[in-house]
């Protein structure tokens, strides 16, 4: 499997993990380990002064793991820039998963604000990985604004519906000069494998692992699926369509024999 390179950093694993919705931090830490991931997202929240809960970072920070703070909770570009600066300060990394979803129901990314924020954050020195609609034109604009990857959604977040946007993802992958990470909607290892077979650079998975019957085993399953899909992509897929139906005569090319 070729190594994935984002902003000059090499990754052996093409599976990124989200840390939401796990039953416990301990379980999450085991799932992270089983997934083999080298990129883990974290959100931010306001500190509760009385509550001395255990620190998430102790379960996530490992050698070889790139922390990817997200901007979850912001509703526009201005808030995103503020959140990004807080994240850089708190976690000591300039890597950022930019996500701006003003709508609380479906958490759909706001394209215009995401583009605006990407432009500003790149100027401020951030490595920006924007979560975005599976919109090929938007992805080109994000790339031109300096995004380190694009992270189009496969389906509405949390739905586990797989690659509902596959026709657009294919165009995005074909046109991109930056890695394409499929984010959101991946509900089963087969979805991740499909994304990787199409030529996606990586997948970001959270819900499908966190809410599985056995999240640790599911993390391992996703690891294998992502590797299998990528390896298949690099190997070159075999026959897929009915284009090969032969015909006895040559009605279209007979003129070439004249």
């Amino acid at each position, binding site marked *: 499997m070729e190594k994935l390179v984002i902003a000059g950093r090499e990754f052996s694993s093409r599976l990124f993990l989200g*840390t939401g919705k796990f039953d416990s931090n301990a379980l999450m830490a085991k799932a992270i380990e089983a997934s083999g991931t080298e990129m883990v997202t974290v959100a931010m929240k306001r500190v509760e002064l009385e509550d001395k809960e255990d620190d998430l970072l102790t379960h996530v920070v490992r050698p070889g793991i790139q922390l990817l703070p997200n901007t979850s909770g912001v509703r526009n570009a201005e808030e995103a820039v503020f959140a990004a600066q807080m994240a850089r300060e708190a976690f000591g990394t300039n890597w950022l998963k930019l996500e701006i979803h003003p709508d609380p129901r479906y958490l759909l990314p706001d394209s215009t604000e995401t583009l605006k924020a990407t432009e500003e954050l790149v100027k401020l020195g951030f490595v920006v990985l924007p979560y975005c609609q599976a919109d090929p034109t938007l992805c080109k604009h994000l790339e031109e604004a300096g995004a380190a990857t694009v992270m189009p959604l496969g389906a509405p977040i949390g739905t586990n519906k797989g690659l509902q946007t596959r026709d657009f993802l294919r165009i995005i992958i074909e046109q991109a000069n930056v890695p394409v990470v499929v984010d959101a909607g991946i509900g089963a290892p087969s979805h991740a494998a499909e994304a990787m077979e199409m030529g996606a650079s990586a997948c970001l998975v959270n819900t499908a692992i966190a809410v599985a019957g056995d999240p640790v085993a599911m993390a391992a399953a996703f690891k294998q699926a992502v590797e299998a899909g990528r390896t298949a992509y690099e190997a070159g897929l075999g026959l897929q369509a009915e284009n090969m139906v032969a015909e006895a005569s040559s009605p279209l090319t007979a003129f070439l024999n004249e």
Partner: protein
Amino acid sequence: MKVWVNNKEVETAAVSLASLVEDLSLPAQGIAVAVENRMVPRTQWADYALSEGMRVVVVKAACGG
């Protein structure tokens, strides 16, 4: 003096952001502090004087995708 920390009123003897963080037993690492919606880098905490009614936000890591 009274300041607001994450929308809660806090009575403190601290005079700087650095001493406030210490006073509230916040971890030195893994957090970020903003005053009036502007991030204050930790290198400036010691010199950043508190004032009455100041609005401070402290964030830390949380689970999320």
